[in-house]
């Protein structure tokens, strides 16, 4: 044995191989290291994948939903489909960013596809006017391009739009990029035929406390619920001398919170705009109640309403201004808010309910306590939905419909809310959202849900959303907050600091909070008009003038405060 080994070792070929290895030892070492580095991902490669190399059918979903939601729904639906049909699915998630990026992508893809169709199929000449008109809901009703688009099946290559806010879906539906399907087999209109029990007040109501839950024409439908609230870090609160957890929006305007509020730019995040709108709506409602309680008021109901709206608007903006003045800065993603709060970089922030609840769960200790908490201010937020809808020209409408059926059906609805490990629940992470179908809130189901005790359909009654009060100003809110709070944050923040340090002198505070330039008439009048005209020069000039005025105002207030005025 030994001899043979020696002979083998002394064999010229072995010697040559050894010499070769000796000569190339550095290269071999480098290659081995490379292989070792690459081995990790190979060894840990997921066993089942929703993006297989070979597949039978593909479903393209565009979505702002986060990773955990995509993973749970992707796996559950692929497994369901495999079991039903034996086909292997490729779920192609497109995640360009938040809702604003999605809107931009859909718009540009749809316009490009329509240009192709217009020139190649209809043999018409393409012009900027056509480009403007085809997706414009305000185009003249007999506009040829608009008519051609609505009659066409021009697609974006994407099947389903999943997640976002009802507002975004309404915009898409108006533009014509979302469709209801053929009313029999495909689309939500087809589902309404097959499952009429889902699309009624006992299932998914059309509206709840003023918030739209589904499109009456079936172009989109809510899949789960969301509300806005305050996420906070108890350690930081105690450190900055606040003994109790926040309970209402106006708590955040407390000067103790100076530099400790996490906010994100409403221009980037639909959910933040929504939260700000809620805050204003709440002020309008309390102004309404206050005015109504005045004995012997001579106001007619219309006057009462308009005065309440104007006063509430002012009060709401004043609150937003103070909260912004307290803000550390404005981040670009709303997901960063719960992270910053959990990390102790901010005492509190505004965010969507399930972000807050997940943050609470992520840092929960073994004894069940958590430094992070979340509250939905009672009477300060409506319950709205995250919808789903099929896009015009969906490559595989049948599969798209099956997915929507899955999401709205019992299996999908349970995925949103069940705890990990419950039968029919998520596999890896609890998604901590609430199902949209009212009929699922049975005691048996609630026992298996992470947040069943939230009783959203009951709580929703504490707040009635009046879309007519802020609808005309929705874009104006975004614009005004951007100009007077986000863009001018440095000056506002500094002026607020001097004001606090000098004991909040009355006149300085007045100057700081002077909102006459953006009062309700201006917001729904001049400002809304310029925003609606889509003339960017006008808009930027307005932003510059307003911004300059407010920045000067803040600087002036800061100086006055320093003089103790």
């Amino acid at each position, binding site marked *: 044995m030994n001899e043979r080994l020696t002979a083998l070792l002394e064999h010229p070929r072995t010697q040559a191989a050894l010499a070769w290895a000796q000569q190339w030892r550095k290269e071999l070492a*480098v290659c081995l290291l490379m292989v070792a580095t690459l081995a990790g991902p190979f060894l840990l490669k997921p066993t089942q994948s929703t*993006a297989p190399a070979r597949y039978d059918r593909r479903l393209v979903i565009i979505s702002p939903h986060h990773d955990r939601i995509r993973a749970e729904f992707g796996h559950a639906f692929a497994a369901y489909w495999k079991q039903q049909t034996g086909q292997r699915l490729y779920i192609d998630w497109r995640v360009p960013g938040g809702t604003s990026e999605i809107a931009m992508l859909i718009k540009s893809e749809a316009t490009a596809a329509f240009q192709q169709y217009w020139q190649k199929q209809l043999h018409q000449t393409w012009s900027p006017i056509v480009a403007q008109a085809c997706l414009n809901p305000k185009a003249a009703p007999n506009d040829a391009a608009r008519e051609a688009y609505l009659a066409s099946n021009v697609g974006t290559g994407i099947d389903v739009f999943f997640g976002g806010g009802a507002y975004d879906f309404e915009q898409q539906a108006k533009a014509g990029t979302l469709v209801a399907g053929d009313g029999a087999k495909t689309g939500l209109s087809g589902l309404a035929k097959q499952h009429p029990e889902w699309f009624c007040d006992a299932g998914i109501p059309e509206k709840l406390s003023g918030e739209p839950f589904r499109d009456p024409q079936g172009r989109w439908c809510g899949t789960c619920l969301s509300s806005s609230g305050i996420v906070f870090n108890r350690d930081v609160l105690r450190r900055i001398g606040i003994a109790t957890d926040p309970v209402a929006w106006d708590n955040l305007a407390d000067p103790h919170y100076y530099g400790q509020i996490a906010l994100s*730019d409403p221009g980037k995040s639909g959910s933040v705009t929504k939260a700000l709108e809620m805050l204003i709506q709440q002020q309008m409602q309390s102004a309404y109640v206050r005015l109504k309680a005045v004995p012997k008021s001579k106001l007619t109901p219309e006057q009462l309403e308009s005065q309440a709206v104007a006063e509430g608007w002012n009060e709401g903006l004043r609150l937003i201004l103070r909260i912004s003045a307290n803000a550390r800065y404005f981040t*670009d993603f709303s997901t960063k808010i719960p992270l910053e709060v959990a990390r*102790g970089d901010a005492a509190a922030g505004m965010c969507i309910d399930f972000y807050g609840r*997940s943050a609470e769960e*992520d840092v929960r200790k073994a004894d069940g306590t958590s430094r992070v908490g979340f509250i939905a201010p009672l009477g300060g937020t409506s319950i709205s939905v995250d919808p789903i809808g099929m896009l015009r020209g969906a490559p595989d409408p049948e599969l798209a419909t099956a997915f929507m059926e899955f999401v709205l059906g019992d299996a999908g609805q349970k995925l949103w809310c069940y705890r990990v490990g419950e039968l029919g629940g998520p596999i890896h992470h609890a998604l901590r959202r609430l199902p949209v179908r009212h009929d699922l809130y049975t005691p048996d189901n609630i026992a298996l849900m992470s947040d069943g005790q939230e009783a959203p359909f009951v709580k929703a009654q504490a707040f009635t959303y009046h879309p007519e009060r802020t609808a005309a100003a929705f874009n104006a809110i975004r614009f005004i907050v951007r100009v007077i709070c986000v863009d001018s944050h440095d000056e506002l923040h500094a002026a607020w600091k001097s004001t606090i340090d000098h004991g909040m002198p009355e006149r300085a505070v007045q100057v700081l909070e002077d909102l006459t330039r953006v009062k309700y008439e201006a917001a729904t009048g001049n400002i809304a008009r310029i925003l609606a005209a889509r003339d960017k020069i006008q808009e*930027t000039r307005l932003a*510059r003038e307003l911004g300059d005025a407010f920045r000067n105002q803040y600087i002036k207030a800061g100086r006055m405060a320093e003089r103790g005025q």
Partner: protein
Amino acid sequence: MSKSLSLLIFLGMTAFFACFFAYPIWAALESAFRGPNHQFTLDYVSEVFLNELYREGLWNSFIIAVWTTLGALCLALPLAVCYVRFAFPGRALMNSLVLMPMILPPFVGAIGIKTMLGQAGALNSLLINLGLMDALHPTDWLGQHRMLGIILMEVLHLYPIIYLNAAAALSNLDPALEEAAANMGCNAWSRFLRITLPLIMPGVFAGGTIVFVWSFTEMGVPLLFDYDRVTAVQIFRSINDLSGNPFPYALVAVMLVFSTLFYLTGKLFFGSASSGGGGRATTGRETISLPTGLGWGCTTFFAVVTFMAVLPHLGVVLLSFSKDWYGTVIPHSLTLQHYRDALGHELTLSSIANSLKYSTLAMLVALVLGTGVAYVSVRTRLWGRQILDTMAMLPLAVPGIVMAFGYLAMTREGQPFHWLMLGEDPLLLLVIAYAVRRLPYVVRSAAAGFQQVSPMLEEAAQNLGASPEKALWRITLPLVAPNLVAGALLAFSFAMLEVSDSMILAQQATYFPITKAIYALVLALGSGPNLASALGVWAMIFLAVTILGAGVILGKKLGALFRG
């Protein structure tokens, strides 16, 4: 090189640039000069200058660029001089370590720095433990002092660029010149100021320009600090505002003009090829052995700079192992779960394969193009060679996101370059995008090489009967090979770490490069930053193995870059 070949390169480059640089920019910028009625207008551009916020943004960008460049120079020049002149303990090792920040993706470092500088982060915990800070009033480093933070981060990320260039220039310097000055009685300081510095100026300039323009247009770092009063962030923040706002494009146009102006001004004042053809070293350089104390001083200097520069990434490493890092100097409970989740994530394996494919191809394209451009601009008297050189530097001045939108616009269905999409696969598009954006590094390092290799060597070969092409192939290219390798490695690693093009152009998860996979993980709820850190650490290890491995395999050839 024969005239016809250089003309061919010139024309080829111009065509390539027209198609893949000028055209996409135009496709993206068009709206900056087109009024509502589609007539030409300068209203948007003039509005940029009227707006105080935009003016402040430009000014802040400029300030950041100036301080970053100065800071990087102050850090890199002494390092380079120490390395080339002196022998000190651990010299070779320190030389590799000090280049580490180049392989560390800044946006991954961002995750680390945010965790460490937070109010309940590692730095504050350390200061509180040391009794230097009141636990009730921790400093909010990220909330205040943001400008300083940005400059520090950029200096620590960008100094290797100047270091590499300065070290290469210094080691190519003929020691005989300095010795001559010393013989004439010139003291060390004025020798450095009057002989060495002017001679290495092209190298320092090459690095300095890249750093200046880079920091002028840098978006990632200010974005990480959520600092929105710099132009790049203003562009980024308004570009995805869905109403088709033309102002970001007007801002891009303004930024482009300024960057070009800075580059040309710099070239005019510092880049004049006064040392051109100074020749290679005629005598070998002897490194001076320092006394033990001073030697260790040098080592410490290198070590401190390296430590500072990799600190964010040390944070990333800790974060990738930590369960919940909160209020302690180092995380108190560790886990491997994040690695299991991140490396086992659906996106990971395919994104790694994609990134390797895209970056390697992009590196090859950039290498071929860059060498051609550098040769034409340094060695020929062709009309317009300066334009070519400037053109090749311009990609630095254009924010990546604008180029990305341009590429997207020009490859839409029905557009002339639609064929580049290969169905839905963005391979060609990403390779071109990466190559164009990494071209400046290759061009600068190749040009520095060509400037320092005397044309006389090539002329001698031609005198002996070699054809111009053969002389180039056999004489000049081998001599500039270290520069080319360095440029190619830079191009490769930066392509691996490219963010903006990857974000926009790779839409389908199957085609995601690794940066987009990391980015997708960051935004994951809950443990997102930990997962992203874990994948980031993997990427850093991979790049380190690649670059150090290349160093080992190429051995002397790569080392020669720094020794001449």
